[in-house]
């Protein structure tokens, strides 16, 4: 019983994120003309997966008490690159995928080096690198276009056994193969420790730099995966500035919805995934209610505000005001 309570306490943020998503998704599906069908779930999954990858990337960096304002631009850059090189037969396609993901890793590594070794503030460093990544994307694709290996794209964006969206399976595989090992590794614990109390981590001889660097690096990799999936969905590459910025901002909303503390040290990338799906549902919900498109951005903002407030409802019950600041 007591072990169970400690587990609950550890997972509180993630479970809150899951709950917010479930509530919104139920409202959405209940009001959808088609109802709860494989098609509706499939569309929702494919829309959500992109933001989920970017939100996971953001969560990794936020856990170290940093922030990555370049994630959206890494997505755009890798999208443009993939629309050139993830083409042809099996071997060129595979090499293309590796090159695209390596580019994501490299972008993350550059952010990490600037923040950790250059001692720049994460917020400023990643605004600068984000602009650079977008500039490269624009050079790669001055106009929208390109193509992608359609067999691979369809396999990863279709359905398994006719019901399960394969994009969700891919996302789950990423959680199992990247997030869980990171969380269990010394580097992962160092990332959490550095985010929670960097000076205490230093005093304890924790490899802070390694942990933070791993977080930025994997963040780049995950954002690159997002870019790859974007290409699979659209079959093209486009250096869309507005879209990149939107992904960056929504990734921050998603990690907060998913119970990751912006002060660092608390939360999980799994929570960020739930947060991403919840954030995506805010937009879809308005579609289900058949809202005039002119009103959609405004109402989406309102729904997001309410969703974020749910996470801080607990603060209303605080009877010791000092708990507000913890």
């Amino acid at each position, binding site marked *: 019983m*007591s*072990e169970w309570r*400690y*587990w609950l*306490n*550890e997972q509180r943020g993630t479970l809150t994120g899951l709950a917010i998503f479930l509530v919104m998704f139920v409202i959405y599906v209940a009001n959808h003309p088609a109802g709860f069908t494989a098609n509706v779930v499939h569309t929702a999954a494919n829309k959500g997966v992109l933001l989920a990858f970017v939100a996971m990337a953001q969560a990794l960096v936020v856990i170290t008490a940093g922030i990555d304002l370049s994630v959206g631009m890494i997505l755009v850059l890798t999208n443009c690159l993939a629309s050139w090189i993830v083409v042809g037969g099996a071997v060129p396609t595979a090499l293309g995928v590796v090159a695209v993901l390596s580019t994501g890793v490299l972008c993350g590594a550059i952010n990490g080096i600037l923040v950790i070794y250059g001692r720049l503030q994460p917020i400023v460093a990643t605004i600068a690198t984000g602009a650079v990544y977008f500039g490269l994307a624009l050079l790669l694709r001055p106009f929208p276009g390109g193509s992608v290996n359609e067999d691979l794209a369809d396999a990863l964006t279709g359905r398994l056994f006719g019901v399960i969206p394969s994009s969700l399976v891919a996302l789950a595989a990423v959680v199992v193969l990247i997030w869980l*090992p990171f969380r*269990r*590794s*010394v580097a992962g*614990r160092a990332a*959490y*420790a550095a*985010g*929670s*109390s960097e000076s*205490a*981590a*230093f*005093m*304890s*001889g*924790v*490899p802070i730099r390694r942990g933070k660097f791993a977080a930025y690096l994997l963040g780049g990799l995950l954002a690159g995966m997002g870019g790859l999936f974007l290409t699979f969905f659209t079959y093209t590459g486009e250096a869309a500035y507005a879209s990149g910025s939107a992904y960056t901002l929504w990734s921050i909303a998603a990690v907060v919805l998913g119970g990751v*503390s912006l002060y660092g*040290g*608390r939360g999980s990338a799994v929570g960020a995934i739930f947060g991403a799906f919840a954030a995506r549902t805010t937009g879809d919900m308005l579609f289900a209610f058949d809202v005039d498109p002119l009103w959609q951005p405004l109402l989406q903002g309102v729904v997001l505000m309410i969703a974020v407030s749910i996470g801080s409802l607990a603060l209303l019950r*605080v*009877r*010791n*005001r*000092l708990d507000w600041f*913890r």
Partner: protein
Amino acid sequence: MTPAETPPPLFRMEGVSKRYGGVRALEKAQLEVAPGRIHAILGENGAGKSTLIKIMAGVVAPDEGRILLDGQEVTFRSPAEAAAAGIACVFQELSLIPDLSVADNIVLSNPPRRFGMIDRGAQRALAEEALARAGAEDIHPRAAVKDLPLSRRQMVEIAKALASKPRALILDEATSALTAADVAKVFAVLKRLREEGLALLYISHRMHEIAELADTCTVFRNGRNVATFTAGSRSNSEIIEMMIGREYSNVFPPRQPVAKPAKAPVLECRNLGWTDRLREISFSVGEGEVVGLGGLEGQGQRLLLLALFGVLRGTTGSVLVDGSPVTISGPAVARKPPLAMALIPEDRKTEGLMLPMTVRENLSFAALDRVSRGGVIDRTKEEQLIDDMVRLLEIKTAGLDIPVGTLSGGNQQKVVIAKWLMRKPRIILLNDPTRGIDVGTKQELYQLLRRLAQAGAAIVFYSTDYDELIGCCDRVLVLYDGRVVRELEGDTISERALIASALNVEAGQEGSAI
């Protein structure tokens, strides 16, 4: 165990010096620490003890001098290197990660691994073993450190140091946050470690602890080791004279008889309650009175002060100031007249000071409304008030425009107190204000409290140090489980009475109750 002959040293420092800017922290310090001995380091804050420890732990590098381990010269470039050489530290500034679990923290420096991943099962076992070794089996390895009270966190810190299986263990004010029961457990652990042949370096301001534990004592003053002697060979007042370099007498100022005033008490509580943590608390504090709060740690003393300062929501009962009921909706209201309260918080690092900001800024924070007009700060007026405070409290600082975090612990605490005195408060609430500060500063603080009381303030003083309650207070309320179980007055305030009431037993029967 006090062998006549000292075994060859495990650790040796020769002519070690360290400067921070123009300030000399250590000057050609010598120190030898032998295995199987407990070596106490004494000195006022600013005497160089912290720097000495930081050098041993690899946190800072010395400017000159040699460090020898087993006769071999060593250089520690990081805490990790010192830990690898077998030197573990229990820091006064807790080195725990608040968001991680107890078990995560205990193995933090070197988690057990399997296939490159952290082995959670082995980690749990190691944590449980270390907690048991530290005598803290009551702490659950999965609990988050930030949810634990200070005394439990300190025990985790000790367990964490033991988990690295060190050869030399440094304890810096390790007991200052502990309850008496925990102190006894920690002492038993330390004595066992001594038997096991560890070299123990023990830094404390509590003389009776040193008398009970230490084999050897070294006194530091102004960055130099001024004397090393066998424990028990010098009297307390001799040792204190060595520490402060002047004669030591009259630690506590004499109590002034408080004339029972005809008018209403300055502060009065009637049946104050909050959740199930504070129950039916009634007491009053008159003008010029110092009322102590005693008892075991965590019996509601801190919460009582927070309730009076308007931090807690949903309190029941009533608070009266000068005889009229008041509603205290928050610190912003509490600090303003007619209440004019001040709360000196427990944790100066988070609740008392903005560490990266300057001494000047920190001093004027609470009094900005008093030195400004129409939202603009009157620099001349501010300067005047600050100068008065720096002089009154004898704050030692290289300047007013340096970050307050660079001051020594005792001087930081003086800044916290000065910041509130600038408002000329009538009701002063103090939450264990002398934790981890040196004898000299403590003594100044006692005198100050008495002077403030004589000037008409009503003072509520929570302390974990019985000597302080006995020496400073006109009356002491002993709390147990959120209630006032006993009120002691004048000469009835004794260590025996305090301990007995703290355990909520009658003075005659504590033997059977424990």
